[in-house]
């Protein structure tokens, strides 16, 4: 399973902050094994030793031997002395408090995310953190994150809590049976999935897991999971199941994808913010933000049809012609069906 990336180069601020937290802890736990200290502060023992070596040249002004902090880890057990000045742990900075407070509030708001136990922990942590942050918490309204998209109460929330149940089942991870909608092909399929993780990308919840039907790792949008059921079967994903790197978003165009050229009116320019495009060419002589010609890649022209049909002609497929024809055909068939309804209503009797 994927681990969070280690920071490239720990900044001086991060190291200082860690030392100001670690020294008070060690003063209370003299003789703690190096491994335990490193583990608690989320670093390797090598990093820990590098941090400790800095302490030798630090102390109260004068910096005579008696002024310097003492650190000793003979036999793998850590002792620190002469560090009264920094014996108490440093309080939280404003950004630190805001990041955690906002994170907690975000999680509290997601329907179906927290079971009763989680909810107790979330609200307890928020109350204590707000208290401990003191004045740093005053600005906490300046920042907020909403991850409740598509999960209006009792929609999606059931799926989210079922997936969490499978991930932390007392008997070990359980397999899930999903009915999943693929809108680009407009089909609903049944799949057995070994859950790997629940994550959000661009404000949406996804379940990533090993799909036994596809024989590979798949990402399922939670709001498109029609039903989810925990099976009485081991849900540990096979070894070759590796989580996808989603840091640059989910959309990764393939080399074999169809290249489509569109012309967008000003009303359809918002597409540029939603869909990754290969190139944009302004068509207005004045160089303003009017019509634009856009190239994008897609593996599936049904996806493109669904994108363009609602736009009512504000986006036109210029190339390839068969994609334009497919779009027009779908529009004509649907238009005739709608006009037939109108005629039937207007018919006398």
């Amino acid at each position, binding site marked *: 399973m994927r681990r969070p990336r280690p920071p490239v180069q720990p900044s001086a601020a991060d190291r200082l902050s860690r030392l100001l937290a670690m020294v008070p802890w060690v003063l209370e736990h003299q003789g703690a094994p190096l491994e335990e200290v490193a583990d608690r502060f989320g670093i390797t023992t090598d990093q820990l030793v590098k941090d400790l070596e800095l302490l030798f040249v630090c102390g109260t002004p004068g910096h005579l031997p008696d002024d310097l902090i003492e650190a000793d880890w003979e036999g793998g057990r850590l002792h620190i002395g002469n560090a009264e000045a920094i014996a108490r742990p440093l309080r939280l900075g404003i950004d630190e408090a805001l990041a955690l407070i906002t994170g907690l509030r975000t999680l509290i708001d997601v329907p179906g995310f927290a079971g009763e136990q989680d909810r107790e922990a979330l609200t307890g942590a928020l109350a204590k953190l707000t208290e401990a942050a003191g004045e740093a918490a005053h600005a906490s309204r300046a920042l907020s994150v909403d991850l409740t998209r598509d999960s209006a109460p009792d929609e999606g929330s059931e799926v989210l809590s079922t997936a969490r149940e499978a991930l932390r089942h007392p008997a070990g991870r359980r397999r899930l049976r999903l009915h999943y909608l693929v809108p680009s092909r407009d089909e609903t399929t049944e799949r057995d999935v070994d859950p790997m993780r629940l994550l959000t990308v661009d404000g949406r919840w996804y379940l990533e897991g090993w799909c036994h039907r596809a024989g590979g790792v798949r990402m399922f949008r939670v709001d498109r999971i029609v039903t989810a059921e925990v099976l009485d079967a081991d849900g540990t994903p096979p070894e070759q199941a590796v989580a996808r790197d989603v840091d640059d978003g989910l959309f990764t165009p393939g080399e074999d994808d169809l290249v489509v050229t569109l012309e967008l009116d000003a009303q359809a320019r918002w597409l540029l913010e939603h869909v990754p495009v290969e190139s944009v060419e302004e068509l207005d002589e004045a160089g303003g933000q009017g019509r634009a010609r856009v190239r994008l890649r897609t593996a599936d022209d049904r996806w493109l049809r669904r994108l363009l049909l609602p736009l009512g002609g504000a986006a*036109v497929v210029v190339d390839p012609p068969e994609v334009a024809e497919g779009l027009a055909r779908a529009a004509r068939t649907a238009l005739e069906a709608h006009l037939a309804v109108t005629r039937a209503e207007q018919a006398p009797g």
Partner: protein
Amino acid sequence: MAGGAAGAGDRRTERLLNLVIALLSTRTWLSKEQIRRAVPQYEDCATTEAFDRMFERDKEELRELGVPLVTGSASAWFDDEQGYRVDRDAYALPEVSFTAAELAVLSLAARVWAQASLAGPAARALTKLRALGVEVDEQSLIGVEPRVRTAEPAFEPLYAAARDRQRVTFTYRTAGTGDPARRSVQPWQVTSWHGHWYLVGHDLDRGAPRVFRLSRVEGAVRRSGPAGAYEVPDDVDGRAMIARVAAGARDGEPRTARLRLAGGAAGQLRLRARVPAASAGEAVEAEVTFTDVEELAATVAAAAPHAVALAPDDLREAVVRRLRGVLEAHA
């Protein structure tokens, strides 16, 4: 036992730590010159100007970490040079004890920022809280990765301005016309909603609250005027404002639409209408609730030719208008 030559990063950490200790252990105000002598690593500065610049950066950095750096003067009678020290009463984290479960959710809260601009502060906060002595139990949170990204360059300055309540000016491209214009705003809140960042604040030119999408902010954000310059109204509901703007403020009373959905198709509308999964293969007539007729018309058009709007009439007309537009544009 000290290792060989310290790298630049080591040297910087040592300097900051010595600075904190000097400012914590002093009983009097320390002048800049005293500080320069008290912290051996400042010897690296060849000139007073270089020292001044370095000291300014260091002060800023300590404040960001939460160190309560205060300034004052040694004498009430003479206009002495400004002195510095750390407020010892405010320095320490208050006594607080988290349960193992609480620490676990705090760790998850920090991970929300793992790929975003507050990743550093979130991780540092967690380190500080872990020093409080509880064992963390993250077992129950395995496999859960809520997170947010901050790709927009405008995030950092606008977040900082909202935090400090400081006015900003920036160039903004409006959604409708696409024309860029200069805007002056008192930022209230920076909010991630549906995967996009928005600023909610008081627009000084329009004299009214406004919502701005960060991806439409062009170029640099300029902060101006003092911090804490205004109060944020108590009843601001940023998300509601954003949702209203996003919906085009067209929301009215909820109505019911009747749709005909082809068998084995129109899955999204089936989901919305809560058609039982068992009847997925059959053609059905289904009802959905809506407030925004254009939004539902767009969804029905997207499912063409597998969905037909039977009622109400204005919905069907809105679908017809879209389909006709597509057909004419591709004629």
